[in-house]
């Protein structure tokens, strides 16, 4: 039992680990898709500032259930992040 508790406290330090399939409790991201609004930022492999918000600490792409990006835009994000990685920008 003790061991289990320890594990739980360690995990909860990172706000992204807290998120399960059913909870959306992160203040970093809104519930609406940020790219489907008017005057949305352009998803581009040169726009590193934007892309860096959608990757984790270990440089993986964050799932859309956390960031609530729409399906089409998530596909585009994915390709652009990979392009930036090829050039060593991310």
């Amino acid at each position, binding site marked *: 039992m003790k061991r289990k508790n320890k594990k739980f406290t360690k995990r909860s330090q990172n706000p992204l680990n807290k998120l399960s399939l059913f909870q959306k409790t992160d203040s970093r991201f809104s519930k609406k898709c940020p790219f489907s609004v008017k005057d949305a930022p*352009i998803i*581009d*492999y*040169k*726009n*590193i*500032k934007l892309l*860096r918000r959608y990757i984790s600490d270990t*440089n993986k792409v964050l799932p859309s259930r956390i960031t609530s990006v729409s399906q089409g835009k998530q596909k585009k994000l994915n390709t652009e992040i990979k*392009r930036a*990685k*090829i*050039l*060593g*920008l*991310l």
Partner: protein
Amino acid sequence: MNFYEHTLVAKQDLSTVEVDKLYNKYNDIINNTSGKVIKVEKWGLLNFAKKIKNYNKGFYIHYKFEGDSSTLNEIKKNINIDNSVLRHLTIRYKKLDTEKEYFKNDEKINEKKK
């Protein structure tokens, strides 16, 4: 004819003269083989996110041009032999926006990476 963007990553230990040579070389290649350079951006020396072939930094040169498959083949041929180029990337676009430059103040981007 299509629109393309092409980015080169050159080695860190090149002198400024050699970088200019590279820049002119690919500029000529595009212009001589039925293509037309619309805009060239020098992003300068940037830090990599992780090491590439034991280099921590690299010179970035970015071309926006119009051309055929023959232009692309010629660029590819030359880059594969070129020792001073680490990575490269070509992407086709339907429209090019030549106004926005993401790498104008390079220092701020480098600071955030650390």
